């Protein structure tokens, strides 16, 4: 019992430090943009951050299983392309398009998971190969930037719908669902397989099934991110997904998700994604020369990560 409390405290120190960093970034942001805490700004910012947060949630799911998903950007673009090329008419059409895009992304995730589970190949190799597969499929669906999303939806997403920040609501709903899932048998199995695969197998878990389900869930998150990006931009672009692969990994690592699986929390990832997103925006406001922005961004990430490692190592002693 005492041990469990200690573990919980350790996780919290981690998250508290990250939250403190987020507050600092927010305070600096407020200094440059005094409209930060107005509903309009919150809508715009959440519209901007939703794809990264959801992509990072997908990456988190895979990383909790002890894997890493290099095909995330490609699957994101695939979902985006499917969603925007579907001739959506009215609300029913949009839902059908979203459903189709989600199915495609979940299927892509499940294929990744099956390859990892049954081929016995390292996830990094499988998902690297899969990134070409899904990248090619995206170009088949959408050979060049195009597609359409109903203008009303784009406006409601980017500028708020009756004063409600739809992207923020979406993220909250997804986080709520994750919270529910985490306490179920499936959620616990995910952590168990990621933390100690042999142990999980020995205690009777169908580890391959858990992996496939986990990658499929990651696909669902990634698909949602792709749909979000399509709604944000009002269109689809087959090459837009690539930066999300590495950015989602950065958000996860910053958020305290272990590369070795089984350790980390979704709320950490969300904080990590927010810090990365706000930081890049903040640097735009400061007017530092573009090349120095990259340096500053890198330095802050390295400092945050080093600090995190230091904190967890100290606590483990």
């Amino acid at each position, binding site marked *: 019992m005492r041990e469990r409390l200690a573990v919980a*405290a350790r996780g919290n*120190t981690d998250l*508290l*430090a990250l939250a*403190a*960093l987020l507050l*600092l970034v927010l305070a*600096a942001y407020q200094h440059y*943009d005094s409209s930060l805490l107005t509903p309009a700004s919150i809508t*715009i910012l959440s519209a*901007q951050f939703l*794809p*990264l947060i959801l992509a990072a949630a997908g990456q988190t799911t895979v990383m909790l299983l002890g894997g890493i998903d290099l095909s995330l950007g490609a699957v994101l673009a695939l979902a985006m392309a499917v969603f925007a090329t579907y001739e959506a008419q009215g609300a029913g059409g949009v839902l059908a398009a979203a459903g189709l895009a989600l199915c495609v992304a979940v299927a892509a995730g499940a294929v990744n998971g099956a390859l990892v589970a049954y081929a016995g190949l390292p996830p990094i190799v499988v998902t690297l190969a899969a990134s070409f597969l899904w990248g090619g499929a*995206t*170009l088949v669906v*959408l*050979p*060049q*930037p195009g*597609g359409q999303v109903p203008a009303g939806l*784009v406006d409601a997403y*980017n500028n708020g719908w009756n004063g409600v920040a739809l992207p923020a609501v979406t993220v909250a709903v997804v986080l709520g669902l994750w919270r529910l899932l985490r306490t179920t048998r499936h959620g616990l199995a995910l952590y168990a397989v990621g933390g100690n695969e042999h142990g999980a197998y020995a205690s009777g878990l169908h580890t391959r099934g858990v992996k496939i389900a986990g990658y499929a869930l990651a696909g669902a998150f990634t698909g949602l991110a792709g749909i979000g*990006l399509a709604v*944000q*931009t*009002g*269109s*689809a*672009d*087959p*090459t*837009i997904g*690539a*930066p999300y692969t590495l*950015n989602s990994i950065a958000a996860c690592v910053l958020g305290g998700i272990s590369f070795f699986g089984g350790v980390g929390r979704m709320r950490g990832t969300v904080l990590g994604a927010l810090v990365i997103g706000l930081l*890049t*925006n*903040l*640097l*735009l*406001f*400061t*007017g*530092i*020369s*573009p*090349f*120095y*922005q*990259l340096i*500053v961004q890198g*330095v*802050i990430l390295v*400092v*945050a990560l080093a*600090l995190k490692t*230091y*904190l967890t190592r*100290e*606590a483990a002693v």
Partner: protein
Amino acid sequence: MNARSVRGALAVAASLCALTGVTACNVESGSTSAGADKSASSAPSAKDLKVGWSTIYLTPSWMQQTLKMLQTDVDKLKSAGKVSSFKTFNANGDTSQQIAQIRAMIQQKYDVILVDAGSSTALNPALEQAVAAGITVVAFDSLPTSTKVIRVGTDQKAWGSMMAEWLAKKLDGKGSIIAMNGPAGVAVSEDRWSGAETVFKKYPDIKIVSNVHSEYNLAPAAQAFASAYSAHPDIDGVFSQGGALSAAALQTLVKQDKKLVPITGENYNGFLKLWQSKQKEGFSSLATAQPNYLSVIALEAAVAKREGVDVPQDIDVPLPEITDDNLGDYAKPDQADDSYPINDLPQADIDKLIGK
């Protein structure tokens, strides 16, 4: 408990240091934006304009040359009192980042936003929001599809058809060729190729034996061409839609000591230099250019628009033609391969294009 609070304090302190660094950098560059506090006036005027340029990439040499030309024009407009500040934003290949940059410029009340778009569709909502906020938005080079912004560009389809037409005539309408295109899924590459395809359809005896996609970079292009060429060594010509691609193809032929078939080109200096040195051996080409002065035309158009000039929505800049005869005016043997020799466009021509 105590150890934990120490660690927490340490975390906060380190983050603070990092952020102080950010603020310190800002102080240094703060002096360049003299007009930062001035809010955007709704009435059209061209005084002390706050100008920002968001570009998808800043590192390629083409962009560096573009920035240099743009900076020269900015300096000129600054001394005329028309522009007060100019800032460049580099999205480093990330379109989502570019959207963030445009939104940041809207919030900071820029007067003029220039943009070199990373996606032909994804920036539209953000750019249209800027227009709605009273900002003059001018896109150049890689253009968005939005019809609400002023677009300064060259006709990429015409680029492709111009090259294809020359090659088809050179081959007397028959023979097999390799097509060297840019990355799949990129609008510029698709447009140039679709322009070329319509021409090749008119010449049924021209066979495209291989259609290669490559980055617009020498190393990957050379690899891509080498594998296509080893499969089809008996080609009669190469359709290439970019200078680095052309240089890669020509270099391969030269290195393997093969027949120098006609290759279409661009004003990439590495290609122009090689073309010039192989001209005596009968190598022939036609090259065009994506002129760096597009940026200057874009800025001049924005300023003219603020002055109340009726600037056309779409400014189609004619493509230059580099032929076997005028090659000497362009090729710069003393300059690096990775440069794009082009001369400034006379002010009179710019004025004509922007409707002054």
